[in-house]
């Protein structure tokens, strides 16, 4: 026989369970807008029935239910979806870093408007042609010097801009490394809390949400592989190298490469292995610096070198205004697009421009004409392009790189949005749903109270019968 007060106990369990479920609903509503909050559900199960089967059990008609308990608070977590979201984040933020950088580079080229390198190049060749028309006119020669300076300024401004971008990128890589290290140690901390809580048998929904949020943040900086160790720990590896292990982290640090324009590169602090990424902001920054910008810079360098070689050889073998001997000097000084300048000797004395192909011939502009004609010489890309054509294809390359980054951004953003929506759909809080649950648990709570009142009245009846007043 169950105890006389057994009914009261069942009603109490009911009240407690409904009230606990009500708390879970309250928590869901309260966190409806909390980023990364996974909707929680109170799992109710029946308590052990009475009596336990045994040889000398009191026989009643059957096992009697003993009430309800909230056995577990589940969360609507989909780890596979979470992993897809982190991968999507890595792709998106890597591409986004490239896209932002390239749109800056595009603005440096300032095409199809002026001033631009292409524009300055045209003016330079026109000025050479004018000198060939009127080699004796110092004003025309001075104009050539001015347009040449405008051209070399364009080259050096472009270089300064690209160098500044490199500096900015290197700074961002350092910031990213710091953020990665901070996130790694936070994940390590949460790992330990989850491990302890799980060992004590708690469900750790909110801690799991916290850890997932940290991993989402980390995925925007670098791609990684996360492995659930099953004991509460989540191991984080980047390209097979541990970042967060069981109770330890391997922080990243940076090294500067003096051979490569002082590029800052991330390495692991334990063995100095370089960080190899395929996604995340840090990957985008490195790609932008080492592939895109480095490529553009080397194209500009080849252009400047072809320009220097072609004009310098004619300048040094030609004759200055009324000179009896070849000038023997260069028109341009410098080695690449960064340091190309006009020879200061020419700036100081415009008559040194070798317009003439024959000695002491003030009316001879044929050498200047030959210089102007290098505009049409196939000096670049293995003798298939003029300098101007090479420049046009460089701008076109920058444009198509930038455009494809923009297109990828649209794709990755829509993938990310879809995944986010899917996550919201599976794990987000629906207020209507919670309102329904709220009402449902409220009614159950009221019913349990009613049971308690009825039990109370039954006991009153019993007590009054024994001890009539």
């Amino acid at each position, binding site marked *: 026989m169950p105890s006389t007060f057994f009914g009261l106990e069942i009603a109490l369990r009911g009240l407690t369970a409904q009230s606990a479920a009500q708390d879970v609903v309250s928590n869901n509503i309260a966190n409806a807008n909390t980023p990364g909050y996974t909707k929680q559900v109170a799992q109710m199960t029946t308590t052990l029935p009475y009596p336990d089967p045994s040889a000398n059990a009191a026989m009643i008609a059957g096992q009697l239910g003993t009430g309800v308990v909230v056995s577990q608070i589940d969360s609507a977590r989909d780890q596979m979806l979470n992993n897809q979201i982190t991968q999507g984040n890595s792709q998106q933020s890597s591409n986004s870093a490239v896209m932002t950088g390239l749109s800056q580079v*595009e603005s440096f080229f300032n095409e199809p408007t002026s001033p631009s390198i292409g524009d300055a190049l045209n003016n330079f060749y*026109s000025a050479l*042609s004018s000198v060939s028309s009127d080699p004796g006119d110092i004003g025309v020669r001075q104009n050539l010097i001015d347009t040449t300076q405008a051209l070399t300024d364009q080259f050096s401004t472009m270089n300064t801009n690209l160098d500044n971008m490199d500096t900015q990128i290197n700074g961002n890589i350092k910031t990213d490394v710091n953020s990665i290290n901070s996130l790694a140690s936070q994940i390590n901390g949460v790992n330990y809390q989850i491990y302890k809580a799980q060992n004590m048998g708690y469900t750790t929904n909110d801690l799991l949400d916290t850890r997932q949020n940290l991993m989402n943040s980390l995925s925007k900086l670098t791609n990684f592989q996360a492995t659930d160790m099953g004991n509460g720990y989540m191991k984080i590896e980047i390209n097979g190298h541990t970042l967060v292990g069981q109770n330890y982290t391997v922080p990243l640090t940076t090294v500067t490469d003096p051979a490569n324009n002082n590029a800052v590169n991330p390495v692991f602090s334990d063995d100095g292995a370089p960080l190899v990424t395929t996604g995340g902001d840090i990957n985008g920054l490195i790609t932008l610096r080492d592939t895109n910008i480095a490529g553009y810079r080397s194209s500009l360098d080849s252009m400047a070198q072809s320009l220097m070689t072609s004009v310098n050889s004619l300048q040094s073998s030609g004759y200055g205004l*009324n000179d009896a001997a070849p000038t023997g000097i260069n028109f341009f000084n410098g080695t690449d697009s960064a340091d190309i300048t006009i020879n200061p000797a020419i700036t100081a004395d415009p008559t040194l421009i070798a317009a*003439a192909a024959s000695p*002491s*011939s*003030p009316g001879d502009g044929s050498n200047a004409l030959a210089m102007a004609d290098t505009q049409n010489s196939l000096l670049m890309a293995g003798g298939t392009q003029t300098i101007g054509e090479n420049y046009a294809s460089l701008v076109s390359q920058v*444009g198509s790189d930038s455009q494809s980054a923009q297109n990828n951004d649209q794709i990755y953003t829509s993938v990310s949005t879809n995944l986010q929506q899917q996550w919201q759909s599976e794990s987000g809080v*629906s207020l209507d749903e919670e309102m329904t649950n709220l009402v449902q648990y409220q009614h159950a709570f009221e019913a349990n109270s009613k049971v308690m009142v009825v039990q109370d009245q039954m006991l009153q009846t019993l007590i009054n019968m024994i001890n009539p007043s």
Partner: protein
Amino acid sequence: MRVTNSYMYDSFISDLQNNMQQLDKINQQISTGLAVNKPSDAPDKIGSIISLRDSINNITQYQSNVGSTNDYLNSTSTALTSMTNLLSTAQTLAVQGANDTNSASDRATMATQVDNQIQEMLSLGNTQVNGQYIFGGYQTTAQPFTATMTGTSVTGVTYNGDSGLMPEEINQGDIINKNVPGSSLIAAGTDVYNALINFRNDLNNNDTAAITNDAGTLQNAYNSLTNINTDIGGKLQRTTAVSSTLTNTNTTLTGIQSSLEDVDMPTAMTNFQLQQNVYQSALTSISTLMQQTTLADILR
């Protein structure tokens, strides 16, 4: 599919953002009038746009070269025409001088006339354009022809210039020599100065046989100059033709450039209207959804 509240609000934001981006892009095209505002707007076209700009720029330079070539050729032609007129007069005088009806003093008078012609021929040989001597070859800064004087008469003319030809690029790969070096005026047998000086000397010497001979020499010199001038006329025709070719090419290239670069206004305006309508509709539907009653409003 389960739709949650955050899901809806996230969608509102990203949808409106997309609409705004589209509007911004079309607005930029309309306000600049350019379909290509940066290389990434049309990487397939930007190369052509830059090449076209290069070509148009070159044409402008070629047009300016044609202009300076024309100036030079015209000045040369004018000087040459005056020279041939002088020679023609001298030749008539020589035929007249060879005639036996003239006396020695008549011939001396003629000689004075020829002396003046020699002076005039000298000053024509030293014609300057923009401060440059056009008959000096590359030696544009010094008088190409200087006279050796005996008293007041010229007894010899020295050429100080060279035979340099001035190339001018009037179209891509089309190079024209715009000057006539003085050396071609004093070629052996057709030397204009020697012809005149000898003629004058023979008049003074009253040597009719030699004067008859001089008439032939003057004729040869005249023919030679006329040939040179005809050649200049041919070159002027060529520059005129090139000039109109350049103008036509420029018009064509500018047209192509515009078709590549410029925005098609009617299409852009239509798109703008369309996009604006989409944006308005989105705003309307979103605001309706945001004001929608939820279960919480109804439950009391």
